[in-house]
C-alpha cells in the first residue's frame, strides 16, 4: 500500500512538473505522517484505498435526500447532475476571469506549486513557518493537489473580491494548500467556497492555510463550506497579523465532522471573527486559538443551530503581559432536538492588567414567547423559527456577498424543514 501511495505522489508531482526538492519533501512528509497517523481518529486505510479506485457515480446511486434538496433549491436537472459529480471528473481550482485585472495591479495569484517554482524568495521567507507540524499537516504536505499562492504587494488595494471555489469531483479527498501574504498597506477580500458533491464513504478534506498580514494591511476572509454528510473536514490554518486588520467570516454546513480551529497570532492588530454553523447529525468543532503578543482588539461572534448533532465551540485566548486592548466574545447556540449536544468551552488567559476580556454565551431552544407570538400571526412553526434564526444571524449574514446571503438563507430554510440540511 505504501508503495502505491508513493507512486501516486510521484504521479501528482510529475503532473505538476514539480522540482525534485518538492517531491522529496512530499515523500518525507508521508513518512512522518505514517509515524503519527494514530493521532487522528480516522480510518486512513479505507481512505488510501479510495485514492486508487476512482469510481464513476450514476444518477441512481445519489441518495434520495440529496435529490430532494436539489429539487427544493430549484436546481435544473443538468445542473443537478453536474453538482452530483457525474459530469466532472477532476479536481481543479476554478479561477476567475478577473485574474487579468489582478495581474495589472501587481497581485500574484497562482497555484501553490507554480508559486513555489516561480517565487522562491517569498516562499523561503514564509512557507511552513506558522503551523506546528502535526499528522494532518504532514498528510497535506504529502498529498496536496490544489491550492493558491496569493501575494498582494505594498499599498495595493484590491477592490474586487478574489473568489476561489474548490470543487471536489473525483471520488476521493482533497488537500488544498494555500499561502496568502498581504504586504504593508495592502487590502484584499478573499472568498473561499468549498463543495464536495460526490458520495464516497468517508471523504477527507484537509486544508493547510498560512496567512500573513503586515502593517496597516486589511484582510477579509470569507469561507463558505457546504459538504455532504460523508465528508470529514479537518483543517489546519494559521494567521500572523502584525499591525493589521483581519475579518474572518465562516459558514459551515453539513459534513460528518468539521474541525476548524485556526491559530491566530496578533501583534497590535484588530481581529473580527463571525461564524455560523448548522449541525445536523454531525460534529462541528469551531473556534480559534488566539495569542495576543501585543496590544490588540478582538471581536468574536459565533452562532450555531444544532439538530441531532454535536457542536463544540473551543476558544483559547492567551494575552501577553503589557498588552492593551479589549476582547468581546459571544457564542450562542440553539438546540432544535432532544438528542443534540453542545459544548461551549472558552479558555481565557489574561496576563495583562490593561486588557479587558468579556465572554458571553447562551444555549437553549428558541424563545417560546417569541415563537408563539409569530405563530399567533398565522406563521407556521418552521417559518417562525426561520425568521427568528435570520434575526439572530442578521449581523453575520450582512457581511457576506449577496449571492452567498441567498444561498445561506435557503440552506437555513431547508435545514429547519423536514429534509434537514445537506451539502
Amino acid at each position, binding site marked *: 500500500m505504501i508503495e502505491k501511495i508513493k507512486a501516486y505522489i510521484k504521479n501528482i508531482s510529475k503532473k505538476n512538473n514539480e522540482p525534485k526538492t518538492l517531491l522529496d519533501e512530499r515523500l518525507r512528509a508521508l513518512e512522518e505522517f505514517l509515524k503519527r497517523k494514530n493521532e487522528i481518529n480516522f480510518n486512513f486505510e479505507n481512505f488510501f484505498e479510495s485514492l486508487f479506485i476512482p469510481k464513476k457515480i450514476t444518477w441512481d446511486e445519489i441518495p434520495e435526500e440529496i435529490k430532494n434538496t436539489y429539487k427544493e433549491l430549484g436546481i435544473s436537472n443538468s445542473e443537478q447532475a453536474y453538482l452530483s459529480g457525474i459530469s466532472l471528473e477532476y479536481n481543479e481550482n476554478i479561477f476567475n476571469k478577473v485574474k487579468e485585472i489582478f495581474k495589472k495591479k501587481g497581485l500574484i495569484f497562482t497555484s501553490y506549486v507554480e508559486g513555489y517554482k516561480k517565487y522562491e524568495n517569498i516562499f523561503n521567507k514564509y512557507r511552513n513557518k506558522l503551523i506546528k507540524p502535526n499528522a494532518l499537516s504532514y498528510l497535506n504536505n504529502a498529498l496536496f493537489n490544489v491550492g493558491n499562492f496569493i501575494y498582494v504587494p505594498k499599498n495595493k488595494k484590491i477592490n474586487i473580491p478574489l473568489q476561489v471555489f474548490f470543487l471536489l469531483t473525483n471520488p476521493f479527498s482533497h488537500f488544498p494548500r494555500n499561502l496568502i501574504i498581504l504586504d504593508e498597506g495592502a487590502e484584499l477580500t478573499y472568498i473561499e467556497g468549498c463543495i464536495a458533491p460526490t458520495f464516497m464513504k468517508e471523504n477527507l478534506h484537509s486544508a493547510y492555510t498560512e496567512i500573513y498580514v503586515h502593517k496597516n494591511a486589511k484582510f477579509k476572509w470569507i469561507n463558505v463550506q457546504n459538504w455532504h454528510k460523508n465528508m470529514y473536514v479537518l483543517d489546519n490554518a494559521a494567521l500572523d497579523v502584525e499591525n493589521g486588520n483581519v475579518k474572518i467570516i465562516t459558514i459551515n454546513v453539513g459534513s460528518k465532522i468539521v474541525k476548524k480551529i485556526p491559530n491566530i497570532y496578533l501583534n497590535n492588530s484588530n481581529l473580527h471573527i463571525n461564524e455560523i454553523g448548522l449541525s445536523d447529525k454531525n460534529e462541528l468543532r469551531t473556534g480559534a486559538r488566539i495569542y495576543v503578543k501585543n496590544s490588540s482588539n478582538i471581536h468574536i461572534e459565533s452562532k450555531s443551530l444544532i439538530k441531532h448533532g454535536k457542536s463544540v465551540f473551543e476558544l483559547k485566548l492567551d494575552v501577553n503581559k503589557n498588552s492593551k486592548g479589549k476582547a468581546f466574545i459571544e457564542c450562542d447556540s440553539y438546540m432544535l432536538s432532544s438528542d443534540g449536544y453542545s459544548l461551549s468551552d472558552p479558555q481565557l488567559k489574561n496576563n495583562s*492588567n490593561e486588557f*479587558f476580556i468579556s465572554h458571553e454565551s447562551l*444555549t437553549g431552544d428558541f424563545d417560546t414567547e417569541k415563537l408563539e407570538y409569530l405563530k399567533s400571526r398565522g406563521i407556521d412553526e418552521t417559518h417562525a423559527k426561520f425568521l427568528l434564526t435570520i434575526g439572530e444571524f442578521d449581523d453575520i449574514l450582512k457581511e457576506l456577498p449577496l449571492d452567498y446571503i441567498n444561498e445561506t438563507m435557503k440552506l437555513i430554510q431547508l435545514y429547519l424543514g423536514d429534509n434537514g440540511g445537506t451539502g
Partner: protein
Amino acid sequence: MVEQDKYVIEGNKDIIINNSRDVNIYLKKGNVNIFYENVKLNANIVVDEGVIKEHLRNSSINTKIRVKGNLKYFSNIENSKVNTHIWGISKHKSINIDGLIIGNKGYGKLVEEILFVNKPVFLRPALEIYGNNIQMEHKAISYIIEEKTIQYIMSRGFSREESVEIIIDSFINMF
C-alpha cells in the same frame, strides 16, 4: 432570621443537603462534593484553593463563590436550576477558575468575574448541554482598572494606592 448551616473544610468532604437552609462554606484546601435534593437555597462559599462539585436533583440553588486562588468548579444538574456566580480579585495571587456546568433538563447560569489588579488570570466557563430541555448561559469578564478612573479619584485628593483600594472596594461591593 434564616437558619444557616456552616462548614469549614480542609481535605475531602461530602455534604448532603436535603433541607432548604442556606449554606456557608469555607474551603481552605481540598475537595468538596455537595449533593442537593429537592431543596431551594442560597450557598455562599469562600475558596482559598480546591475543587467544588455540586450535584443537583429537583433543586434550585444560587451559589456565590469568592475565590482567592485556584478553583475547579463542576455542577451537574438534573431537572434543576443553578445560578452560580464566581468572583475574585487578582491582587496577591493569580486566579484560575476552571468551571463547568453539565445538564439535560433545567436551567444553568455560570458567571465568572475577576478584577485584574496585577496577577495573571485564567477563566474557563464551560457549558455542556444534552438536548433541548435546558437553557444555559455563561459570562466571563476580566475587568481592569483603567488609568482614567485612577486619575479621576486622585483628582479628589487621594493617593494612587488609595485610589486603587477604593476601586477594589467598589468591586467587592458589587457582590
